[in-house]
């Protein structure tokens, strides 16, 4: 039975076989059930993993699930903090009581004075609670370069989990997912951005992609580390592929409309040392 080369099998799936080879290939499919089953499985895999609609839907579900999980996590940390402080206060009170009981004199002498315990400060009710805090590592001392490289920009953080809608039009990024982490190799990262739009695009609008590091001064001047026009394909998708030569740290993806400067999508990613 004729064996087909890798190139031939590839061309079959690509739809670029010449008619004669195609007839021979299809004859093999008819006469060899094992070969036919193998080719059918490959086609099934291509269909499943290339299902753009499902992939986009899943990416959106991941995004929403992470957002809600982060909100619950932040609330849980605040609750745990208060329970921890309460427990500490009870322990200290118990120790003080025990100590004073042990020192109670049997005759008329006074026990040595016991230092006052200091209760943990009760925060003010109007103390701002951080919203949309990134799911980064435990806090490190503020004066270290490492902490500075991952400190978020509050204004961009506010937009992370919201997208601007203009008459129902919005932009989705399906790759990379928000909070993706990249590890540079030889100082570079293969960066592939992909997404699509939903709804009717505002007339004459053009979009621009900007990548910012977390330097608030550069951001305030809108000085991006990478900047690129983002044309839309006829199927409402877009993509951009490049090699990034950037230092480890926190970065933001911003897609804005060129003429109005309106932001349509904000996301973040990190570069970490391997």
């Amino acid at each position, binding site marked *: 039975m004729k064996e087909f080369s*890798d*190139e031939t*099998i*590839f*061309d079959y799936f*690509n739809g670029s076989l010449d008619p004669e080879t195609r007839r021979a290939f299809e004859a093999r499919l008819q006469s060899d059930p094992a070969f036919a089953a*193998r080719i059918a*499985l*490959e086609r*099934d*895999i*291509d269909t*499943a*993993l*290339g*299902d*753009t*609609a*499902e992939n*986009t*839907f*899943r990416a*959106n*579900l*991941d*995004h*929403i*699930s992470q*957002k*809600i*999980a982060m909100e619950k996590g932040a609330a849980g940390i605040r609750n745990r903090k208060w329970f921890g402080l309460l427990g500490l206060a009870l322990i200290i009170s118990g120790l003080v009581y025990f100590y004073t009981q042990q020192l109670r004199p049997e005759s008329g002498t006074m026990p040595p004075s016991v230092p006052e315990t200091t209760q943990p400060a009760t925060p003010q009710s109007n103390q701002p609670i951080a919203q949309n805090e990134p799911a980064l590592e435990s806090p490190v001392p503020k004066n270290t370069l490492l902490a500075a490289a991952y400190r978020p920009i509050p204004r961009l953080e506010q937009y992370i989990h919201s*997208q601007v809608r203009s008459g129902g039009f*919005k932009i989705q990024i399906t790759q990379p997912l928000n909070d993706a982490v990249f590890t540079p190799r030889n100082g570079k990262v*293969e960066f592939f951005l*992909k997404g699509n739009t*939903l709804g009717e695009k505002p007339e004459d609008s053009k979009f621009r992609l900007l990548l910012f590091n977390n330097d608030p001064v550069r951001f305030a001047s809108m000085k991006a580390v990478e900047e690129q026009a983002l044309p839309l394909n006829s199927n409402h998708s877009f993509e951009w*592929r490049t090699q990034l030569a950037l230092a480890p740290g926190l970065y933001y993806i911003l897609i804005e409309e060129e003429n109005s400067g309106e932001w349509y999508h904000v996301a973040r990613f990190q570069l970490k040392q391997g």
Partner: protein
Amino acid sequence: MYYIRGILGNDSRVLEELYRKFLPPFTSMLRKQGGGNDDARDVFQEALVVVFHHAARPGFQLTAAFQAYLFGIGKFIWLRQRKKNSRIEVTSEPQAGYDIDADLEHRIMENEKRMLFREKFLELGADCRQLLQRFFDREPLAKIASDMGYTDDYIKKKNRVCKEKLVESIEKDRRYKEIATVISA
């Protein structure tokens, strides 16, 4: 049909509403079936993906409350997962008040098969994943070859090598045999 339309339209606002409204009671339901919070979140997402495909077919009609429909699918998915580790028999009997008909069961099994494909895909090396993903995304061969600095023929060969690895790892997994048997029955 509000939630169905939101799912089919991939409407973030409706999907977020779905998560906030239905995930907590879904989690409670799954806990009673031996599941944890992470299981509930994963199964909830898979149930939504099943709805995404099932409700898209022509002539779809929702014949029960949306919650019953979604929870019925989710419970069926969960019980199938548990079945693999125990002797629980999973049938098409009404789950959480919703009758899983043959068509819906087929859809759930198709989703399970796709999940297996994804799992095996993610187990490939980074270079194979990156290359295959570009083909799945319908990028032209010439562009891929040019970006990677190789000839077209080399990329075709590399594609085949990576695809063979993926196919073999799927075929070796006994879950694939079981799913394929059920789907073809």
